[in-house]
Each structure stands twice: as structure tokens, then as C-alpha cells.
């Protein structure tokens, strides 16, 4: 989000510097499961997701984009009802989602569980290789002439008459305007400006297996959203779904919790029986920031002149490249093409 905002601001004629605590893409955008699915986006965010999705699609091979199509599955009546209700609304919001019969699903993807009760399909769904996000964004910033300072942990922000003095390590930077787009680390940054953002953090778990025989082509989701699963072209399965680990951004990387990992793997095992025989190589966690109403913080940082914030975008990996430039438009004094989400409402 920070990088795409920087790119738009630079296009608009501003001199921009991106200050990054670790390296580009080290946070949520680099450690998520790479799912680019319209079926798991919130209804009101669908216009943003469609634009973001297009950005990833056009990035193509450089970030390992694959348009695989994706199924969302329901295995009992309660889930079927939820699926129908949710996907109908998402379709109305513009996502090209269709309902398919269990027989159609199993014919096209024989590796899926034969206990499907209802299913939806979106041909636009796919995934990217999130480990390549940082390298890709770094290249874009470099090509645009935007300075990127990595391994620069911001410890002080002083407000001055005409802007900010930002201290990271031994370096100090002066700027007229400031955008905080640090994901789960946004609240600690805002506190340097004495602004208490009500940001909370989820610790999502992702698991990768060793490569197995390629059985599955489309992405797989669950009506509840508690499973995302894909088999990459090398045969390894990536399993996610927002099961919670533990940890806090201030204390370092989060930790996987065996009890939630177990349920995540059971759901994967149930939906795709072929996963039973592959070995799990690694489970990890990534932080996802949110505010209690689960809508983005995208706009003016309340109470600080010329400061802005962009965080807590649910589905931010897909939506980031759409909403980043929109916030940059606001900073440039332009009218954003889609409405933003005023952070003041959350205070």
C-alpha cells in the first residue's frame, strides 16, 4: 500500500521517500498465502478489489500471477445457506461469481471432496507468489525514481511548522507530508505523533507442504472463509484461512498455535483428500491490522495537519494497489476516483 501510494504521488510530481523498517514486502504483503480471490472480499470493497485484482493480473509473471479460477465450497446445509447469501451479494457488487453444482465441481476438479453440498465459482480468482512482492515493488520504485530506505526503523517524528522531521536510525528526513502505511505497525507509528489509533491485530497462519503430484488446478475456499487452499505449479499446497496464531507486532514475529493449525489442516484434509499424504514443511504467521468495524483507515490522520494513514484494509493484498493510489490522490489534492474511509470515524 505504501509503495503504490508512493508511485502515484511520484507520478503526480511529488518527491517521495519510502521509509521501511525491514525490507519492502516484509510484512503482510510478503508472508500471506498469495490468494487473489474476489470471493473472499467484502461486498462494499468489491469495486476496489476488482481494480486491485487487475493490477496484480497485469503484473503477470513478475509476481507469479496465475489466473486459476476458484471454488468456494459448502459441506452442509448451514454452510450452503451462508454461501448462497454471501455470494449473491458479492455478485451484485460486481464480482463475476456463479453458482455451480457439486457434480460440476467434482467433474472439473476430481481431487476435491465428494461431500460438497453447494459451491460457487469465480473464473477471475487466482494467486500470486507473495514472496516476490518485495522484489517487484522495489523494482517499480526504483524505475520511478522513488527513494526506498530499507532497514530504517522510525523512532521519532517531530511535527514542525511546515511538515515533519522523521528519525530512523542515524538518519533524519524532512518532509512536508507524511503517510503512515505500516500495516500492523501503524499504531505504534501514529503514537509517535500522539495519535491513538484503535488498531487491533490478527495473527494469521499459513502452511506450505512439500510438492506432491499435481491434482488441483483451481483455488479452493470454504463458505465460512476459514480455508484458502491452492496447489502451486511445483505441486506444493499453500493452506490458509485466517486461523489465529499468537503474538504482537511490537514483540517480533508471531507464533503458530498447534490447536488452530490442527483445525486449519483438518479443513484442508477434508476439502482436498489428496493433501493427506504430503508432508507439512512449514507453518508461519503474519499480522493483519484491523479496526473494530473492519473497514479501512484510509484518509487524513485525525488531529495532525498534512499527515495521512492507510491501513486495516481487509483483503489488503488484493486491494492495496487500488487504495494506495487513491490515498495518494487525496495527498495530491485530487478527488479520489472511489470514496476513501475517513479514519476519524474510528476514533
Amino acid at each position, binding site marked *: 500500500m505504501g509503495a503504490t501510494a508512493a508511485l502515484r504521488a511520484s507520478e503526480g510530481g511529488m518527491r517521495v521517500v519510502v521509509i521501511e523498517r525491514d525490507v519492502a*514486502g516484509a510484512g503482510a504483503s510478503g508472508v500471506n498465502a498469495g490468494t487473489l480471490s474476489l470471493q*473472499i472480499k467484502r*461486498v462494499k470493497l468489491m469495486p476496489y478489489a476488482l481494480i486491485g485484482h487487475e493490477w496484480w493480473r497485469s503484473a503477470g509473471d513478475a509476481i507469479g500471477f496465475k489466473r486459476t479460477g476458484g471454488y468456494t465450497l459448502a459441506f452442509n446445509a448451514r454452510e450452503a445457506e451462508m454461501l448462497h447469501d454471501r455470494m449473491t451479494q458479492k455478485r451484485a457488487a460486481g464480482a463475476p461469481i456463479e453458482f455451480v453444482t457439486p457434480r460440476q465441481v467434482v467433474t472439473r476438479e476430481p481431487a476435491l471432496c465428494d461431500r460438497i453440498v453447494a459451491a460457487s465459482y469465480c473464473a477471475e480468482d487466482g494467486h500470486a507468489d507473495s514472496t516476490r512482492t518485495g*522484489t517487484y515493488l*522495489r523494482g517499480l520504485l526504483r524505475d520511478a525514481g522513488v527513494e526506498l530506505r530499507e*532497514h530504517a526503523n522510525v523512532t521519532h517524528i517531530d511535527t514542525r511548522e511546515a511538515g515533519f522531521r522523521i528519525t530512523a536510525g542515524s538518519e533524519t528526513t524532512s518532509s512536508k507530508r507524511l503517510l503512515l502505511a505500516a500495516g500492523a505497525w501503524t499504531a505504534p507509528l501514529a503514537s509517535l505523533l500522539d495519535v491513538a489509533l484503535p488498531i487491533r491485530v490478527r495473527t494469521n497462519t499459513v502452511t506450505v507442504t*512439500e510438492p506432491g503430484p499435481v491434482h488441483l488446478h483451481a483455488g479452493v475456499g470454504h463458505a465460512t472463509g476459514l480455508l484458502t487452499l491452492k496447489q502451486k505449479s511445483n505441486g506444493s499446497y499453500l493452506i490458509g484461512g485466517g486461523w489465529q496464531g499468537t503474538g504482537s507486532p511490537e514483540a517480533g514475529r508471531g507464533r*503458530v498455535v498447534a490447536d488452530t493449525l490442527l483445525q486449519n489442516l*483438518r479443513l484442508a484434509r477434508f476439502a482436498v483428500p489428496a493433501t*493427506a499424504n504430503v508432508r507439512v514443511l512449514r507453518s508461519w504467521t503474519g499480522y493483519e491490522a484491523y479496526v473494530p468495524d473492519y473497514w479501512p483507515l484510509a484518509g487524513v490522520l485525525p488531529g495532525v495537519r498534512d499527515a495521512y494513514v492507510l491501513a486495516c484494509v481487509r483483503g489488503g493484498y488484493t486491494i492495496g494497489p487500488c487504495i494506495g493510489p487513491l490515498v495518494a490522490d487525496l495527498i495530491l489534492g485530487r478527488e479520489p476516483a472511489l470514496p476513501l474511509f475517513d479514519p476519524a470515524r474510528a476514533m
Partner: protein
Amino acid sequence: MTFDLAILGAGPAGAAAAVEASLLGMRSLVIDEQVAAGGQVYRASPPISSGDPDGDRLRASLAGCSASVRLVHRLWNVERDDDGFRLLAIGPEGAFEARARSLIVAAGAQERFVPFRGWELPGVMGLASATILIKAQRLLPGRNVVVAGAGPLLYAVAHGILDGGGRVVALVDAQPRSAWWMPDLLSRPDLLVRGMSWLAALRRAKVPILRASVVDAVAREGDGLSATVQGRAIACDAVCCGFGLMPATDVTRLLGATHSFDAALGGWHVVVDDQQRCDVPGLYAAGDVAGIRGAASAPHQGRIAARAVAGAAIGSTRERDGASRFGVAMNRAAQVGDYVISSIAPDVTMCVCERLPRSVIEAAIDDGCVTINDVKGATRCGMGPCGGRMCEDAVARLIAIKTSCTRRDVGMATGRPPLRPVALDAIAGDFDYEALPMPAPAPL
């Protein structure tokens, strides 16, 4: 099941800790992946004996103590909470779970690899792998073997091959002869004599010993292999190559203990105090995991750790420290200069699991990656089945060389479960779909 103490590893440190804990009246659990206790140093062959009286004594004393011993159990996760530790393993009967108030990690060491052209070929293996074949299965790595690398294992493996009736076509020691002149070796005249007898056996068998040399490349040649050393091709059917030992820190990393880098102790190791305590409450480490000090020092560390867990008097640590001298010196002989990393060609594979050549790793470093976690995130290096055990050290060293940073700056990769690859079904076990807990879905 809740134990006072769990011990990971039934090698010299773990077994001694278990016996001591038993004498002190603690209920303890020992978990080890192997079929027999003894660790790598006293690895047994069927019928279970290492042919080494120390190993047989270790197994007898472990079997005779009150500890509950779970062999053939693969630990895949450890969690810590206010009540202590929760251990999750997969055994012959499936999932096994236990709790313990304290934990002694006695996970030992792992081999250090240095990538070279062809190191991923079948027939090329580590010195430790060759030791497993020889000790546990009485198998030879090949009929005509090149034994290469650095450190004492080089001579142990070459001797083992000769002893088993194989031929060592060349012993390629990266070190000059002078690297072996260390006063601390005199601290164990018995082991020094054993080393000299190995060397004499190599001489009798007229094994060519090439010093200050490394294997530059291995390639397939007919039915066998060809190893290139200083421009000379050596025909063989197996190459065993390793560069000393590193502490096996995956469990202590996972638990978030503080680690320190010291090349003399094998690199990254978990930090312990004089009572073998880590800086995570209830966590202790004994043996090579706390720095490579060898098999003689390990039992002392294990006993001290067990006494510390029980709150018993530790007594003198002189014996432990004295016994460490030889092991530390031996591992020092396996330390080779940066040239082994600098000379890796751009197209040589560094991460075997993800098939990443040096050029890809280097591009990531040139692009701004300065820590091992940065490179891992950018390239997937170390994310395959080996979990970084084969490539992390060489890649971290490359980063340090290229960025002129220290290994401490480059850091260690974040510890993550599972500690070893585990079949998804073994973790998932039997379950009823309708009984799976489903947290409330995300808002629409």
C-alpha cells in the same frame, strides 16, 4: 501426561540428564527420533550396539532409570505457556502429546555443508550421513569413495570405509596439516591415539591424502562420478563431504531463546548460563546445542541441567569445562576460510530444496537483502524440506561476505513448526467434520 521434565534427545547429554533426573526423583520423559538411544556419536547398529562400550553403557543406564523413554518419536512442535511446555510428536502409533514443567533441549548437532558444483547429485552426501550408513546399517556409501571436507569426521569416515572393506580413492582435507597442531588435543590422549591409528590405517591402505584442497566439482561419469580436485579428475562412485558441526538449534529458536554466534563453538548456539539455563523460563540446553563441545562434555552438561531443574546443588563445573577443550579444538579444525564460499560459481545450486543458484541469492542481496530472513522472504531459500539445515549457513556466510557485515548482523532464520517434515494426515489425525470448531466468519 504431565512430567516434571522433558528431555529432547537421547544422546550423551540427554541420557545423562535423564539418569540424573531419575536419581533426583523427577518424573521425566525422553523423546528421540531414532530407534535406539545414543545419539549420533553412539549410534547403534542392529542388534543394538555401537561396538563402543560408552554407548552400550549409556543405553543400559537410560533403560535402567525411571525416565519414560519415547524412541522413534518425531517431535514437530513445542509450545510454552505459564504451566510449562507442550510437546507434540508423531510416533509409531500416531500423534503423541505430553506436557512438562521444564524442558532440557539436548538435540545435538547438525553437519555444516559448503555448496560446490554437483553437491546435489545422488552419491554425494555429508560425512554425518555416511556415518549413519556405516554405524547403523554397516553399509558403505560406495565402493570407491572420495572423502572430503574438514574436521575429525573426515578421518573417522575414511577409516570406517576402509574398515568395512571399501576403498577411499582420495581423502581431501581443506586444512593444511598445521591446522591439527593444537595443544588442547593433548587433553584427551586416548582420542588422540585413536586418531593416529586411523591415520596409520589410511597410510597402510595407501589412501592419497590431499591437504589444503577442496572438491571443486562432482559430475556424473559413466555409471559413477568424477570429482575434480585442483584440476584433477578423480573417478569414484560416492563423495562424502562435510565441514564440521553446527548446534541443532531448531527447538530453541522456535521457543524464542536468545542465541549467540561464535565460530569457535560451531556458529549460532543457544545461550546458557553456568547451570545450562536459557533465558526462557523453564528451558535448559545441554550438549552441542549450546555450542559444539563434543561427546565428553555433553554428559556433564546433561547432569548439571537436570540438577538445576531439580533445584539441587550444581557442584563444580570444572569437569564439564575440562572435558570441553578437546571437542572445541576438534571442531576448530573444521573451520575453513571464506574462500570456500567466495569461490562458488554463479550457477552452482546453494539451496537444493528450492533449486536456487548462487546468482539468485546474490541478486537478492544486491537488491537490498541484508539478513537471512530477508533473503528467505525474497527467494524462498531454506523453505524446502531441509528447513534450511543444508543451505542456511552458507547463504548467511555469503550475505556477510557481500555486505561486509557480521554473522550476528545477518542473523538466524525464524524458527517455525513443524520442526521436521510431517505428513499432513499424521497431524490431522481422525476427525469428524461436523465437530470441527468454526469461529464466526469474517463480516460481509
